[in-house]
């Protein structure tokens, strides 16, 4: 029961300011905000960066980094007297094995490649960022209905992972009776193997901001939130600079837009849209039940238009060059797409290519395979693994879904024949167990059951857990509240299905 005047949305930043979950901090933050002390302590305990504060080196234990020897790196650091904490994927798979220093800044390493600028790209990461806000001017001139129609013609699908047609959300928010609406940019990129939004924010922040401003204009929102991953300090700085440059244009074209950047604090689940809203409101990032959807009842119960960074970054070119132009960029589905690729390939990086290319084409762009490829994960940990016999499948939303996998965030990892697929599955299951929010039992308990099943196999060649994987996965899929629990068994299930020899 919220006390009148309580300032809940401030508690996470205050917890960070006071040094995280240390004795007495919850009481102090309670005094400053009027939110009950226990509640604040519970919030702090949810977010890794608040629950385990302190100066230490955080080494990524994501799939790509483990394949690249993150274990060795951790050992070397420990041997040299450095305090080390293994953490979930840092979104730096092009720098594998990646690490953050004691100030949460990236430990320098070679940065991944991007594709050369071509005419058939909607985002052109390699081009100079355009701060003219000409597309916003055009949107304002043509009107909101025109913009929504262009999105529809463009066939733009949400680039965060679900592939939901963008225009549905935009028109749904626009059609609400409630006059107060919000726009939220989901920049909490944390799906293992994914680092495309990071590159957009670093290289072309105006592209995203302009897309966001167009969204705010169409939705009738006066405030926009950008929820950016806390480990992306460099992105935060790039955004702050760009927002300053954008402000005069926004004032001139749409009478101003309040932009609030909110940092994440180490919880993958906050990439789930309703968990993200909970985090902005100052709660534990536990997904809400849907329906109602955020378009109807989102931030503080108001209609909320939430899009992924890349989705918004596509909008200026759709407005500027038209929906049909964007639609034609794709091969099997509309538009061009940012593919992240890492693992056993020559040049890890972010490549903008027609939506629906094959793995071989993507790897060719990335300099070719390293060693003999055996498996690939097409769209982050949530997509599981596919065997190389599926290398010809179109990397798009529809074709991958038909295979029981998913396009997800297009974070592609290639694994060659030096990798034991049971081990690869274990790394992914560790991720899901660590990142389950714990709200619902199917995911909270199921993710642990699945991780222990693969542990027992690898550590003791005990098959009892493996025999239950399918039934537990069925229940996790049926019973979980959100998508995390629904897909959290996929790495192990798919590894067992396609690479059964590694489980014999």
């Amino acid at each position, binding site marked *: 029961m919220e006390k009148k005047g309580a300032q809940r949305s401030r508690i996470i930043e205050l917890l960070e300011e006071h040094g995280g979950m240390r004795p007495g901090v919850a*009481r102090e933050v309670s005094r400053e905000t009027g939110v009950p002390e*226990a509640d604040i302590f519970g919030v702090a*305990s949810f977010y890794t960066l608040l629950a385990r504060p302190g100066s230490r080196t955080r080494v990524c234990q994501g799939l790509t980094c483990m394949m690249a020897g993150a274990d060795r790196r951790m050992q070397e650091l420990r041997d040299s007297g450095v305090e080390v904490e293994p953490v979930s994927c840092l979104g730096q798979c092009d720098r594998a094995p990646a690490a953050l220093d004691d100030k949460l800044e990236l430990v320098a390493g070679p940065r991944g490649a991007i594709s050369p600028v071509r005419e058939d790209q909607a985002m052109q990461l390699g081009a100079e960022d355009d701060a003219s806000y000409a597309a916003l001017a055009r949107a304002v001139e043509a009107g909101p209905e025109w913009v929504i129609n262009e999105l529809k013609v463009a066939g733009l699908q949400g680039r965060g992972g679900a592939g939901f047609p963008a225009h549905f959300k935009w028109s749904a928010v626009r059609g609400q009776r409630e006059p107060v609406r919000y726009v939220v940019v989901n920049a909490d990129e944390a799906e293992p193997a994914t680092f495309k939004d990071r590159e957009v924010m670093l290289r072309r922040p105006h592209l995203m901001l302009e897309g966001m401003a167009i969204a705010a204009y169409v939705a009738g929102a006066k405030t926009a939130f950008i929820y950016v991953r806390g480990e992306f300090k460099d992105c935060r700085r790039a955004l702050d600079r760009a927002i300053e440059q954008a402000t005069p244009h926004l004032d001139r074209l749409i009478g101003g837009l309040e932009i609030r950047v909110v940092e994440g604090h180490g919880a993958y689940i906050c990439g789930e849209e309703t968990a993200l809203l909970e985090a902005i409101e100052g709660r*534990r990032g536990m997904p809400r*039940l849907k329906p109602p959807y955020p378009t109807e009842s989102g931030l503080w119960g108001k209609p909320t238009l939430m899009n992924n960074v890349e989705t918004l970054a596509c909008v200026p070119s759709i407005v500027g060059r038209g929906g049909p132009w964007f639609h034609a960029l794709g091969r099997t589905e509309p538009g061009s797409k940012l593919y992240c690729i890492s693992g056993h390939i020559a040049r890890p990086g972010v490549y903008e290519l027609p939506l629906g290319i094959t793995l071989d084409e993507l790897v060719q762009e990335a300099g070719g395979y390293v060693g003999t490829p055996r498996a690939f994960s097409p769209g982050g940990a949530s997509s599981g693994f596919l065997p190389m016999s599926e290398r010809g499948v179109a990397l798009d939303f529809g074709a991958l879904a038909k295979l029981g996998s998913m396009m997800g965030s297009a974070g592609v990892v290639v694994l060659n024949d030096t990798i034991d697929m049971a081990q690869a599955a274990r790394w992914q299951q560790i991720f899901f167990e660590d990142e389950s929010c*714990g*709200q619902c*039992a*199917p995911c909270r308990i199921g993710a642990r059951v699945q991780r222990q099943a693969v542990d027992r196999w690898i550590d003791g060649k005990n098959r009892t857990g493996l025999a239950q994987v399918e039934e537990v996965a069925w229940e996790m899929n049926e*019973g979980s509240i959100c998508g995390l629990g629904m897909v959290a068994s996929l790495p192990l299930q798919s590894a067992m299905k396609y690479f059964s020899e590694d489980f014999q």
Partner: protein
Amino acid sequence: MNQLIETTLLLEIDGEQVEVPQGETVLKAARALDIEIPVLCHDDRVEPAGCCRMCLVEIEGQRRLQPACTFKASAGMKVRTDTERVARHRRGLLSLYKADHRLDESGTPVSRGVHDMLADHIATYGTGPELEPVNAPRVSREHDTNPYIQFDPDACVVCGLCVRYCDEVEAVSAITLLGRGASTTIGTADQRNLLDTSCELCGGCIAVCPTGAMTEKPSLEQPTEQIIRSTCNFCGVGCQLDLHVAEVPVTIGATGGGSSTGANLPVGTKKKITRVTSPEPGTTVNDGNLCIKGRFSYEFIHHDERLKEPLIRGADGQLHPASWEQAITRVAEGLHGVKQRHGADALGFVSSSRCTGEENYLMQKLSRAAFGTNNCHQCAAT
């Protein structure tokens, strides 16, 4: 305002039609048909959360199973609770809960509290895969020395009902969901002793806990043989109490003043209150709620030193049993004596909040009409 006109709608559950008011949930509609939908995290006094996943049902047009406790009924809706999909889900979910729960020697989930819903659901709906215990790394508050409330994290299903009750019904917010993922449990700020938090020790968390993870410390291992309905007389609200009574062994050294024999020797049995609960929510004035006094202050009832008859101090300085007539006569003499020597305003009358309104009225009447002083007070007045 059209909210004043209650409109109803018709829906179908397991092939049976039911008419419910607009805005009703599927769970309540099912109850109207006496169709049992199992729950763990639900209580009518708090907002439904849909997080225990026990009440998921099939709803036509919905791709996913939906929680009956939050899903609103709509006209023409078709709900099924009796399909193989729902049954398989219940078994699968109960398997997971069981793998995460403290079990007794027979493999049944342990409950030390008033509800044992996990074991009940397993007995009714069965389990799916036989899973190994997951040994979730939950923190406990074993150092918590509060006298009344004990929490066993390994008997907890993390439904959060206690947290929501503490916040939404009591507005106390002393406890919280703590941690994340498999380690999620119930905690306090800085994991302090409940006595050092906003907790009022009302014990509502115990009453709502579906699996007895929250328990009354004084009632641990205590049986219930009989339940006697009574009215709490600590204040004038009139809360109804269910006194749980049992014959329990009496030992030397356990009670009684001062004698330290070292060992507690059984010397027989005695009828005693072993636990106090509230009647079911929605059935009495207190709606399932109690306060610290009503729930925990019952020791006096069977206490060895409880006064059961009037005592008058004799010339020897000792208290001696007396009849009520003797006692009242003695009091009257004393009061009249003070009034004669010092006047009526030398007297003062204080009555107890444990008296009824009528008794309190009579007390002030005695003060004003019989003795002639306005010096009267009742201990709950300030």
